[in-house]
């Protein structure tokens, strides 16, 4: 099913999304990948404030290529989500409602998704030029020294993703693959 939703979104919207839904996101999302996650995790452990509000927000695992003059961003596709697994349950428990990445998640992340009624979306890996067309603006809001790994606030319009793991723990990577598997 095709759905257009605005981000950030609430518990009800997250609860309605189902594994396999095509979703077009419009609104504000935040980028963070390996180094930014490590830094946020360390800040949390020291009791420091995080650079953006977790509640209701969506994190995009992405580090863009540099923007050419007059453009908001360069190539901007998802990176592999599992590298963030170590840090993700803590962020979900603080209210993150959605994550955009590619690839499998750990059991602990799936449990935290279900516990918090959140959603894991996949964007098409390796389609960074195409995906950049749905990003209207990009602003570094924290960890500037990390270069491509800095935290960016993105305004997106109809950013195309697919629900992989929904709030009930259904996992498209498992269901869809078994549908086409022909093993001897």
């Amino acid at each position, binding site marked *: 099913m095709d759905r257009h939703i605005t981000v950030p979104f609430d518990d009800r919207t997250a609860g309605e999304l189902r594994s*396999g839904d095509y979703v077009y996101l419009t609104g504000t999302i935040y980028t963070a990948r390996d*180094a930014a996650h490590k830094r946020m995790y360390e800040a949390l452990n020291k009791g420091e404030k995080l650079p953006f509000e977790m509640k209701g927000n969506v994190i995009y695992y*992405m*580090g*863009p*290529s*540099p*923007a*050419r003059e007059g453009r908001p961003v*360069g*190539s*901007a*596709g998802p*990176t*592999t989500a*599992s590298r963030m697994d170590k840090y993700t349950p803590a962020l979900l428990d603080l209210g993150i409602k959605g994550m955009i990445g*590619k*690839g*499998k998640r750990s059991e602990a992340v799936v449990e935290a998704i279900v516990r918090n009624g959140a959603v894991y979306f*996949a964007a*098409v*890996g*390796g*389609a*960074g*030029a*195409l995906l*950049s*067309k749905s990003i209207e603006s990009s602003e570094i809001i924290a960890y500037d020294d*990390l*270069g*491509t*790994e800095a935290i960016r606030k993105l305004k997106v319009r109809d950013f*195309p993703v*697919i629900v*992989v793991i929904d709030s009930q723990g259904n996992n*498209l*990577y498992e*269901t*869809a*693959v*078994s*549908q*086409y*598997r*022909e*093993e001897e």
Partner: protein
Amino acid sequence: MRTIRVDDVTAAIKEMCIEANHCLTQDMEWALCRAREAERSPVGRQVLGQLEDNLRIAARENIPICQDTGMAVIFMEVGQELHIEGGSLTAAVNEGVRQGYREGYLRKSVVGDPIVRENTRDNTPAVIHYDIVPGDQLKITVAPKGFGSENMSRIFMLKPADGIEGVRDAVLAAVKEAGPNACPPMVVGVGIGGTFEKCALLAKMALTRPADQRSEVSWVQELEKELLEKINRSGIGPGGLGGTNTALAVNINTFPTHIAGLPVAVNICCHVNRHCVRAL
């Protein structure tokens, strides 16, 4: 003896880094198109269609195909009758990478130390493989490698008794484990034989072979075809979202090995299998 200058090497490498990150070779474009036509899953067809659109947008609007513009892997086949003057060849190669990644708006994805992890901010150093060959030319292959798929690559030190079945199982196990992480449909580079490091290099070089060119060794050719079929029956599909096109090609290189060993390396590449070749 023919002479070239290191400045010409720098200029070529710079252009090749930019070109490889914006345009795939024709064989890769055809392979994606054939996959879309053959794909049975509707979601899979949609993903493959998006990948073709992505290539068109990248070329037309000068945006890198993928934001992970890779660590620059460079093969240098240096003719033994060629004289290269004007400074260090390795420094010239790295200067080409530095200029290409800066002027081509490519992402700087290299950290100077694997534990300290500070970005070098110019994507150097490149990983350079030199080979001395007959002749008086310099053949350069620039193959930027993304790490979503690099992280899913594996080396297996099999034993002679494991045989071809062992090789088959090793490749399939690596691909299955890679699944959606490696941005399928992937190209699977396999090295069989040599030593620990030689088989890894064979696998890396196999990725630079055109997707539609099979091995000239008959048993290797059979194995390439068989593995491609088996991988495409795994169900992983485009984007890992289910389907009948998980790999576009399986390219295998072999080399003599030791009486006690059967090393196998599986270097997985995503559908953005970039390489650019030039002779100077």
